[in-house]
């Protein structure tokens, strides 16, 4: 196993601490963890070894079910019920954590090792104040009196840059925004100045802009406190600029480990390479297909012998299925478990990266958007939700401006991408178009008919032409209905066709979305995440709609599966001339999918234009900020410009003038006084921007974060 390495590509992040000096802080040796649940045995961690040096940061990457979280939980023996470490050792500064008595381990938890979990909303106790929850950690390890512990809690909240720490300490978790809750979680983990911080997907539940702030905070605290960090994540972008080393996990094992820049720049394991190629940020726009990894991650209840990735690997030969590759490599400090590693170009870089950079040099072919009649025209769409107060009679004290004067259109066979942070109103737009909510003002013309004017049968007929896909495919499928019934239901509701024909329709659609025929008899719980989203897509397609509203359809999926679904959606779009309203918080996904992008902020459309142009040269500062916030995998660095900070203000009382001005680096007096209209941007064709001081166009060849930049 490699000892901690000097960071080669992340620009002096060692914090003055000689890396590799002395013995490592944390050493995991041949760890095996099993989880017994409902008569099944899952070998979640299967022989993992890794080390973390003093003050070093390690990124543990992999898709869901690869064992990365179980590895992290094994370190502190915080495994879920049924979880057992069957063999291997975890030592922390000479102490054997696997053999230690529970009461001794309690001194290590929160004292020596702090841990931050994925979802700050559920990871905080809803009935305890933030201050008490942070102070509890202090009381447990420092034995201080309550008052001293609370004082220390406020100090720690200040350390994690919590706004108004004294006030927040007295508040309950539900008072705080997602970003503030995650800061509170970090404060709990850091209250006793641990030597190691384990962060398990710390930003997955947060917006990109907030994600960047939290990651920067962890990074800064690591240097300030000289602690080591293990960052567990599925997102290569999250660790790209922030960790010294990466360990890539697959099927319960580490398949590749080296310095971060080495793994990302010259991946040798086919899985690592495939994972990177599946990133939408690397896909050329237009008709380019996203590279996806075929098949599903291995079932760890009955793992196959040999290389776990063999079944999905394009380089695999017969040999791979029978023998287990050892984790070693031809370069010191770069280990990979593969018999047939990815070839390297003469200069040492991966060949596919070069292809990419040339592909991005040209404007994509789809730039010339053919003039098609619009399928959907949205004009002045407005929706307010009343805010009421009062004990007896609900008085209207204000309103949340969820959607305010939003206009756009979607051409036939095209995709309109709607982007923005959570709470910006993008999902409300979807609900209004789908007819789940009624707009307060504005019109929705679908194929020339105003949906608000239609009633009864006419409305139902038109409604069948608009279908929905959701983020949580599992939640959107009835758990007590088999796939066939789920697909038949829309046909029955709309009395479409004869019942005898339904069976054939169902079979045809299952085939089209790439599901095996026997899926028809299965329940949603028997399907994987990707299969469920395929089924949801099939249900949306069964009435032969013209428009599908897809609300974050791939946000809950792994990168490799996400690529499969995105490719499938594009294939079906070409096949049926479908239009998509594609809603996502992830600009790189939207850029890949959409022909036209609309950017929303606090209920307002702030920028509108062709997707590749917006991504390459945003004109609204908010769009720029969103793009800058996306962690780029290849450059390993975030944008040089400071990303927009903080979280959106409350939509109950949106700021006067331009709603973005409170977070805008370019804001001036006029921004508070006058609301900028959505008008054609100067010097750009086909672009609309609502800004008093729009950004100048980026010259061709300039650096842009969303597109791959291999320099």
């Amino acid at each position, binding site marked *: 196993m490699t000892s901690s390495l000097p960071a080669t590509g992340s620009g002096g992040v060692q914090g003055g601490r000689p890396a590799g000096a002395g013995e490592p802080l944390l050493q995991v040796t041949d760890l095996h963890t099993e989880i017994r649940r409902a008569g099944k045995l899952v070998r979640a961690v299967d022989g993992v070894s890794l080390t973390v040096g003093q003050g070093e940061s390690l990124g543990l990457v992999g898709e869901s079910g690869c064992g990365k979280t179980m590895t992290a939980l094994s370190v502190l023996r915080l495994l879920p019920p049924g979880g057992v470490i069957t063999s291997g050792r975890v030592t922390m500064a000479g102490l054997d954590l696997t053999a230690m008595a529970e009461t001794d381990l*309690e001194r290590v938890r929160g004292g020596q090792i702090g841990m931050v*979990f994925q*979802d700050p909303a559920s990871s905080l106790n809803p009935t305890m104040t933030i201050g008490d929850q942070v102070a509890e950690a202090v009381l447990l390890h420092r034995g201080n009196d309550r008052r001293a512990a609370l004082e220390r809690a406020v100090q720690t909240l200040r350390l994690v840059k919590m706004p108004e720490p004294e006030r927040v300490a007295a508040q309950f978790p539900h008072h705080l925004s997602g970003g503030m809750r995650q800061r509170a979680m970090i404060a709990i983990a850091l209250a006793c100045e641990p030597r190691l911080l384990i962060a398990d997907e710390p930003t997955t539940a947060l917006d990109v802009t907030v994600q960047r702030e939290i990651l920067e905070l962890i990074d800064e605290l690591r240097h300030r406190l000289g602690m080591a960090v293990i960052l567990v994540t599925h997102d290569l972008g999250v660790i790209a600029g922030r960790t010294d080393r990466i360990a890539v996990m697959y099927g319960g094992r580490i398949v590749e480990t080296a310095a971060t820049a080495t793994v990302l720049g010259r991946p040798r394991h086919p899985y690592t390479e495939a994972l990177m190629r599946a990133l939408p940020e690397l896909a050329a726009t237009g008709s380019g297909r996203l590279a996806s990894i075929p098949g599903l991650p291995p079932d760890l209840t009955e793992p196959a012998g040999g290389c776990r990735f063999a079944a999905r690997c394009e380089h695999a030969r017969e040999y791979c299925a029978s023998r287990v590759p050892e984790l070693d490599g031809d370069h010191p400090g770069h280990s990979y478990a593969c018999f047939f590693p990815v070839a390297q170009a003469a200069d040492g870089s991966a060949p596919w990266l070069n292809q990419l950079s040339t592909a991005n040099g040209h404007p994509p072919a789809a730039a010339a958007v053919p003039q098609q009649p619009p399928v959907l025209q949205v004009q002045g769409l407005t929706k307010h939700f009343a805010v009421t107060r009062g004990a007896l009679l609900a008085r209207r004290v204000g309103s949340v401006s969820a959607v305010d004067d939003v206009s756009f259109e979607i051409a036939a066979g095209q995709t309109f991408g709607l982007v923005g942070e959570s709470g910006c109103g993008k999902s409300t737009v979807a609900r209004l178009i789908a007819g789940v909510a009624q707009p307060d003002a504005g019109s929705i013309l679908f194929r020339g008919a105003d949906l608000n004017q239609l009633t009864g049968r006419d409305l139902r007929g038109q409604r069948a032409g608009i279908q929905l896909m959701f983020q949580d495919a599992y939640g959107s499928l009835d758990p007590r209905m088999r796939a066939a019934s789920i697909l038949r239901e829309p046909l029955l509701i709309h009395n479409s066709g004869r019942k005898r024909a339904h069976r054939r329709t169902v079979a045809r659609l299952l085939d089209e979305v790439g599901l095996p025929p026997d899926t028809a008899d299965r329940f949603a719980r028997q399907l994987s995440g990707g299969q469920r989203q395929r089924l949801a897509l099939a249900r949306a397609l069964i009435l032969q709609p013209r428009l599908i509203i897809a609300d974050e359809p791939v946000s809950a999926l792994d990168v490799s599966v996400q690529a499969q679904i995105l490719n499938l959606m594009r294939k079906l779009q070409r096949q049926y001339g479908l239009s998509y309203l594609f809603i996502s918080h992830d600009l790189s996904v939207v850029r890949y999918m959409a022909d036209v992008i609309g950017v929303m902020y606090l209920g307002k459309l702030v920028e509108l234009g062709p997707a590749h142009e917006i991504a390459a040269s945003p004109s609204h500062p908010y769009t720029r900020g969103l793009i800058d916030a996306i962690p780029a995998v290849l450059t390993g660095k975030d944008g040089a410009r400071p990303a927009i900070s903080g979280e959106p203000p409350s939509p109950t009382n949106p700021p006067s003038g331009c709603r973005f001005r409170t977070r805008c680096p370019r804001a001036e007096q006029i921004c508070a006084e006058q609301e900028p209209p959505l008008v054609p941007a100067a010097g750009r064709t086909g672009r609309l921007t609502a800004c008093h001081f729009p950004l100048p166009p980026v010259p061709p060849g300039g650096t842009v974060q969303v597109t791959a930049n291999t320099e």
Partner: protein
Amino acid sequence: MTAYLARRVLQALVVLVVVTLIVYALLTRVPGSALGAVLGPHAASGFLPRYFSWLNQVLHGNLGFSLLHNEPVSTLLAASLPRTVALTGTAVLLALIVAIPVGMLQAVNKNKLVDHVLRALTLLCYGTPSFVLGSVLILVFAVKLKWFGGEGPQAPGFVGVITDWRDLTLPVLTLALLTIALFSRYLRSSAIDSLAQDYVRTARAKGAGERRVLRRHVLRNSLLPVVTLIGLTVPQILAGAVVVESIFNFQGMGYQLWYAAENHDFPVVLGFTLVIGVGVVAGSLLADVGYALLDPRVRYAGR
């Protein structure tokens, strides 16, 4: 919090008005012409005016006149209500004191032997009719062992009942055993839910020991649904009191209600029904207040 309370009180008042309307409607349908005299002055005619005049009487403490005892229903109520409150209150308290550790123990040892044994025991108590349970307890502990009295406390008033622990034990035990299973089962399932919550893992990651995790993080969050349940079990407990008071010859509301029903003493039946209705409404109101006190999300949301 005040807004939330005001809203809940108002809702409770609306329910109470409906309760009085139903009771009054029943009262007027009661056979027997003697009732007219019992109901008090009836200058007004028509349902609503008569209802309001009756309501006026009720609000002034006039619940009618017992045909059997030859005294106002309110007098009867004043004597029996505190006794029943003492009996049922002690029983609920005892049930909670037993059910909380039992439920937590079951949750921690989910699907293990302890869990199964405790579930079987509590269900056995829950499933046994109270007259059987009461009789068995009397037979064993009063007749055979002579540890406790076979009859409920006979001293008057709340204090009289509470202080006579020798006679109080068996009726309280009978009532409590019935409700332990109810509370412990709820607590078990809600504690199992809480144990699986991410914040419990957070507490463990802080270095909190098992006892602290259970006390500080699991118990409080698990008690929330139980608090609601206590409010909702008020009618069940009062129904149980009717049987238990009869078995133990304990002169409380249940006993009086039973006796009045057997002897067609309708003013007493309906007067007591009204009071029990008020008790049930008050019980669920108190449960909501308790819930709000325990759960800050309700306290501040105001809805």
